[in-house]
């Protein structure tokens, strides 16, 4: 079949608009803050073979995990798929990523033939297990992490699977929310099926599938054309996770990228072995993070489909933190994924120094606080804190922004306080937390929680308390992460990066997230930008003097230019960041 460029564009736009509509339906109908406010979910459309042909502007990191899940479904059910089916799974060892992420797939039929799939993945507030939120980083086996849902039909030819429904209802802490969000997933999948049906019948199945394949080829072609311009060779970078929460040993994530003409071989040999904590990332998740890192620095507006995966081969040693075996725990694998992305970008910076930013905050922090109100009704807060971007080759990083692998939002303070016995004491940028550079890193953010209920359990997952976000091209590292507990009597003590502990009324948990790394030598920073940051109280005069050699006038409202020139001349260039 000949490809008409116009029909091609029409179908591409139609798919984008359908998948956005699917995602929008989730947002409007979901019940939990983590889905409706934080937007930790994603939506995609796959063709009849299971190739992902479109993804909504939601969680980017879910992108690469769909193929594996789809393969597992095909293996489980073969041809036993029917109109009205809704298949769910969450087991990392059978197509899933971590237990809170429940995947839902609905096959789409037209005249009795399988044509496509709607896919919606939601992070659920709780799936049972030993810790509220089911997201602890200190579980040692997957059996502690909650309900494992094998690949099952939640709806079978339109009929609800009551057995599965009741098992979920009985095993999660907040069944209304979980079942409500599952309903949102199903409503959204239904929208995808309806719209895909219209699209395919409009063009006819042969034409439609021809163009679906063309879209995959087009993405692959664009990716290969770009990669071909990269210098061949092997480029290695190592970044670290602080520790696994049980002992102090840092966990290296080492990546070697080999550029070979128009494709990449990405090998994680040298990364930490599987850990007895919940930081193990499944191979599918490792793939995801790898694809995403490459996707972020490719030029051009490439469609969000799996065509680009075809030019990237990912290798990760078995039984490592990036390719675990049973019964490794996985709940906090997102953190590992962030570090994979940091390591990937560090290596890519060696290939394409003019495209890659310095390191951002290192991934969102998860704070889960769960317990009972005085009337014994349960509450669970799963709050995610983001983030900042590193300095870039031609501009500053960004203050207070989602990690680019996610596109998460935040929970409004007023919503949190209205729904839970908690008071947020502050939510603010942290001055001086940016890594200095010609282009500075973004500032980290601080958020503090005062418990108003009698008692609760706290589970905190943060990182970058020992390994700061790296600077690039002589830029400085960002400030590290800090956590504190303030007692009822006002005494402040340090908390570790990862902790599960009880919390009492009026205790305050303070999280200060890491700031991002800087790009380029700090002494080369334009003094007007330094002054602007001082006047905005994003950096202090002391910081400006220390890193940028900038001296203020006695009124501290302008730059003393002569003194600045002198000071800058006297300062030997400081040693750089990680490169």
């Amino acid at each position, binding site marked *: 079949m000949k490809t008409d460029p116009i029909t091609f564009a029409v179908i*591409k736009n139609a798919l984008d608009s359908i998948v956005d509509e699917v995602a929008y339906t989730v947002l409007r109908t979901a019940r939990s803050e983590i889905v409706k406010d934080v937007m930790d979910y994603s939506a995609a459309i796959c063709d009849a073979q299971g190739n992902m042909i479109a993804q909504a502007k939601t969680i980017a990191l879910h992108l690469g995990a769909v193929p594996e899940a789809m393969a597992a479904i095909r293996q489980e059910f073969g041809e036993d798929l029917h109109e009205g089916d809704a298949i769910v799974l969450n087991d990392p060892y059978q197509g899933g990523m971590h237990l809170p992420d429940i995947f839902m797939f609905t096959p789409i039929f037209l005249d009795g033939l399988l044509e496509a799939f709607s896919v919606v993945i939601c992070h659920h507030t709780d799936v049972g297990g030993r810790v509220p939120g089911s997201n602890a980083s200190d579980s040692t086996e997957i059996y502690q992490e909650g309900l494992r849902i094998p690949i099952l039909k939640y709806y079978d030819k339109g009929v609800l699977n009551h057995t599965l429904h009741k098992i979920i209802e009985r095993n999660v802490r907040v069944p209304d929310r979980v079942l409500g969000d599952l309903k949102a997933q199903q409503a959204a999948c239904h929208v995808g099926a309806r719209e895909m049906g219209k699209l395919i019948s409009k063009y006819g199945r042969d034409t439609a599938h021809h163009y679906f394949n063309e879209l995959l080829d087009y993405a692959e*072609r664009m990716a290969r054309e770009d990669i071909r311009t990269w210098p061949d060779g092997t480029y290695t970078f190592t970044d670290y996770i602080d520790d696994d929460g049980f002992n102090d040993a840092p966990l290296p994530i080492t990546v070697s990228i080999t550029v070979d003409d128009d494709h990449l071989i990405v090998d994680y040999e040298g990364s930490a072995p599987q850990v007895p904590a919940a930081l193990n990332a499944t191979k599918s998740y490792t793939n995801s993070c790898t694809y995403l890192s490459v996707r972020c620095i490719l030029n051009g507006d490439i469609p969000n489909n799996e065509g680009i995966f075809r030019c990237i081969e990912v290798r990760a040693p078995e039984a490592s933190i990036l390719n675990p075996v049973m019964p490794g725990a996985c709940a906090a694998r997102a953190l590992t994924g962030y570090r994979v992305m940091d390591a990937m970008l560090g290596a890519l910076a060696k290939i394409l120094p003019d495209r890659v930013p310095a390191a951002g905050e290192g991934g969102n922090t998860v704070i889960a606080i769960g317990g009972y109100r005085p009337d014994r009704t349960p509450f669970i807060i799963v709050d995610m804190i983001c983030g900042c971007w590193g300095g870039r080759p031609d501009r500053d990083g960004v203050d207070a922004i989602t990690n680019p692998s996610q*596109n998460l939002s935040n929970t409004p303070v007023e919503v949190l306080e209205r729904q839970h016995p908690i008071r*947020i004491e502050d939510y603010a940028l942290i001055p001086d937390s940016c890594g200095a550079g010609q282009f500075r890193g973004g500032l980290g*953010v601080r958020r503090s929680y005062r418990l108003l209920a009698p008692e609760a359990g706290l589970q905190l997952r943060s990182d970058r308390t020992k390994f700061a976000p790296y600077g690039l091209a002589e830029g400085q590292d960002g400030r590290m992460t800090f956590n504190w507990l303030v007692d009822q009597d006002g005494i402040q003590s340090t908390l570790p990066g990862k902790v599960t502990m009880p919390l009492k009324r009026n205790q305050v948990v303070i999280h200060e997230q890491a700031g991002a790394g800087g790009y380029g030598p700090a002494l080369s920073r334009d003094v007007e930008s330094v002054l602007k940051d001082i006047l905005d109280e994003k950096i202090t005069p002391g910081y400006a003097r220390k890193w940028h050699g900038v001296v203020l006038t006695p009124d501290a409202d302008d730059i003393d230019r002569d003194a600045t020139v002198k000071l800058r001349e006297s300062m030997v260039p400081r040693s750089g960041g990680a490169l």
Partner: protein
Amino acid sequence: MQYRIGVDIGGTFTDIVLYDETGQTSISKVASTPDDPGKAVITGIVDMLAQRDIAPAQVSEIAHGTTVGSNTILQKKGAVTGLITTRGFRDVLEIGRIRTPDMFDLTWEKPVQLVPRRFRKEVVERLSAHGEIVVPLDKSSLQTAVRELLAQGCEALAICFLNSYANPVHEVMARDLIEKEFPSLLVTASCDVLPEMKEYERTSTTVVNAYLLTEMRAYLTKLEAELTSRGFSAPLLIVNSAGGMMGLDAAKSRPVFAVGSGPAGGVIGAARLGQATDLGTVIAFDMGGTTAKASIIDKGVPMLINEYEFRDGITSPSRFTKGGGYMLKVPAIDIAEVGAGGGSIAWIDAGGMLQVGPVSAGADPGPAAYDLGNDKPTVTDANICLGFIGETGLAGGSLTVNRALAEQAVRIHVAEPLGLTVTQAALGIRRIANVNMARAIRSVTVERGLDPREMTLMAFGGGGSMHAADVALLLDIRKIVIPTMSGVFCSVGMLAADVEHSLVKATVGPIDGWHAGTLKAPLDQLEADMRQRLKEEGFGPDRIELSFGADLRYMEQSSELTIPVDRQVLVDEGGQALHAPFQAAYETVYGYSDESPVELVNLRVTGRGLRDQKLDFRALSGGSHAGEIQHSEKRQVCFSSADIWLDTAILPRHHVLESALDGPAILVSYDTTIVVPPAARATTDGCGSVLLDISQMIEGSGQ
């Protein structure tokens, strides 16, 4: 004789419509004066009246849609604005909702802060989520903050305290203190603009209001003074974002409600015309030079949203692009906008795909055929290559067109790289533009679960009538209406609108908890406030119409559906009366409903002040205009297939008023070019509209 005037300022032209008691209208387009937009308004009105020998005192009302609000934000020329907020929350505005509009884009930057950090000050105070005072407002910390901001040069202040939606006490104290002790400052407190939950949305809306105060006041005060000095005594009314009119004082103190003033006039006109001609559900489709806009009108009522992000002209059709603009949580017509208009430039991307827009050649330099310095092909150039636009050109011949330049641009930049002929390439450009514009329509129809095939497409704006049939074909829409004066339809629409305000009151709680009688107090409060506001604008009780609404959701959801409610039923029966209508509305939108408890979030009231002499489409009669062709001619036009050029009649628009017309044909008037494709049939409706029926085209395309 009394006259009313509608004025709309566009990027290229300022459009003026004059309307008299008998329904006679006349229109005029004058060049816009972007540096001082009021200048074109005054000269345009004065010249028009002079030509017709009408005295200013005979004008009874001037309705105005203004882009001053939107331009003030886009050009960052608002007040030096400070923000007073609760200790610990100085950065709420800058942190925002932390999303990015696109994935995978590491070069992205946040919109420039309207209030930079140095102008954001914290004061000591704290309310709980239920409005109890946790820490009383410390006046000395407030005074210190305000003094610092004054010393820093602030002209306007926004006040937004955490949880103030639950209790405005501290904001009111702070506002009153500042107005008393620092009278030079313009102040907006969030409780006066948006007493709703979610601190970022409320802060952002309040800040934008404060930011607009100086420019909007200066513009409106000057315009009013100029009009007065020339003998006009008529009230000046401003179109708000929701398509209602607001009085001058309201526009000066709450300009955030008028940021979407520009495009709203056309939508409200489409609503009134649709109502007058019983069109049912209408898609208002407004195609300009840079963007195309679509919105839905159901039974004469435009679909409204309660929040949107204002950004630079072009919105992606995706509804997920949070973070790309300034959040405004005010009622606005739900307009989807895509970067495809007459000036949109066609180009080829790295993967070899033909793209159109979002970059636009605008009005200056404009399409390649204008020979004003742009050599890239635009949608208008494609239309010229295909014969839709003749060389005599646009706007009554005031712009000349060079067809050879249009063809050259298409050949070099599209046809040759893709191995196509110029005609094939021009058809491709046109088709992609049509698809992109259809996407705007999709986002307000199918993405809301609405089927466009049962609706009527009402096309207006500079290029709407040239693309209407093809866009409709993409969506299987059979019925198209090109309204009278479609090229200046935004101005026409303003004359058809009522004065309108909306107020909201947070009433968060499960509907079961709102027993009979308990909603009386908040409803009374809303009604009293609304009546007071309309009274101030000169409307007596007999000319006020109120309608109430409730924002509802299932417990624990974050998005609400607004449903209309009967005030008395709600008072008598309490929240229970809301259950059935909510279930029905939810089922319609999302395809399911369930047994979860339903929560009432806000009550709303919309108040209309009924105007005496509203434009009535049924009683309209238009005059003729200089520059209109009077005789028919023939031209070769390529409609859909590159090897078929049809000998096409080019007719004056009024031709179709006399008899039905089968395509192919092109109808031309002072302000509009209407394309009637082969197999389409054009008729008229008695309100001056041209109706296109494309049923045969749809059947012919095999669907």
